[in-house]
């Protein structure tokens, strides 16, 4: 009897200690984590440019609730995004889909970079061929010095 009492007391202390550890706010932290990852790439439709993950707007709360249901039903990320796009259009995606309308957006930067690098190399090469280092005559040298005096002291 005494042993049983002691065991009960020990068990009580144990559970009391556990009771002090704060429980996660979400019902299911794993689902919640996945929700946040997906929702960070989605737009809150009624906010002035906020993600669905952080917004406290009513519609955002409703949509997050919907997404939780979908996640628990085993839908993939793509299916969840399609669910929202079907109802609200592509405006809801913060990562614009790659399609002909957005080719300029997604490929523009890299094409611009390649184009600029190509032009740069071509310019450098051309510059080297056309301007060969020239020797100054004495007259040109004195003229240059006079000019330098007038503008600024040399670097």
């Amino acid at each position: 009897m005494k042993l049983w009492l002691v065991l009960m007391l020990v068990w009580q202390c144990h559970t009391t200690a556990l009771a002090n550890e704060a429980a996660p706010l979400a019902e299911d932290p794993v689902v919640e984590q996945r929700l946040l990852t997906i929702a960070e790439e989605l737009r809150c439709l009624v906010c002035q440019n906020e993600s669905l993950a952080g917004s406290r707007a009513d519609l955002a709360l409703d949509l997050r609730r919907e997404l939780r249901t979908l996640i628990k039903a085993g839908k993939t990320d793509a299916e969840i995004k399609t669910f929202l796009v079907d109802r609200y259009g592509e405006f809801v995606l913060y990562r614009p889909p790659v399609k002909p309308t957005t080719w300029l957006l997604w490929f523009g930067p890299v094409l611009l970079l390649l184009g600029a690098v190509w032009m740069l190399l071509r310019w450098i090469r051309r510059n080297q061929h056309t301007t060969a280092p020239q020797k100054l005559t004495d007259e040109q040298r004195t003229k240059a010095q006079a000019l330098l005096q007038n503008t600024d002291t040399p670097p």
Partner: protein
Amino acid sequence: MKKTLIPLAIFGVLLVFLAIGLTRDPKEIPSPLIGKPAPVFTAPVLNGQGAVFRSKDMLGKVWLLNTWASWCVACRYEHPILVEFAKSKTIPMVGLDYKDQDAAGIQWLSRYGNPYDVTVTDKDGRIGIDFGVYGVPESFLIDQAGVIRYKQIGPFTEEVIKDTLIPLIRELQP
């Protein structure tokens, strides 16, 4: 000469787009459901003592689904126009009381008038989500086959009813 005009040309194009942008509203989200079948739903009737409305029952008719709420300010501007329109008995109208309390909804209708053939409630907003509702009021014109033909974002005005809605209804049910 030609190469140095390129920056000016690029800037000119940019200006044109910015000018066009001034005429657009970046917060308006057009519906992707136009031309697609309206979501099928069942909903409790407001004060129907347990009666249930099935959207499938509306097949074969052209009808208007109007979302509203007792907490919605803009709905008060739209409501008299809807009440007036309902008098012409052109098409059946179904009201969707969005994220509201039953008592408040009933009180609001008795105060501002009831243009609806039937009013249903969407307490948790699920039906709204299926329709892509992001604010109230929003309205959907649905045809005989159950396809959404038009969405009105924000309150109706008399011009929209006269110039857009009625002609479209006439087209759908000659």
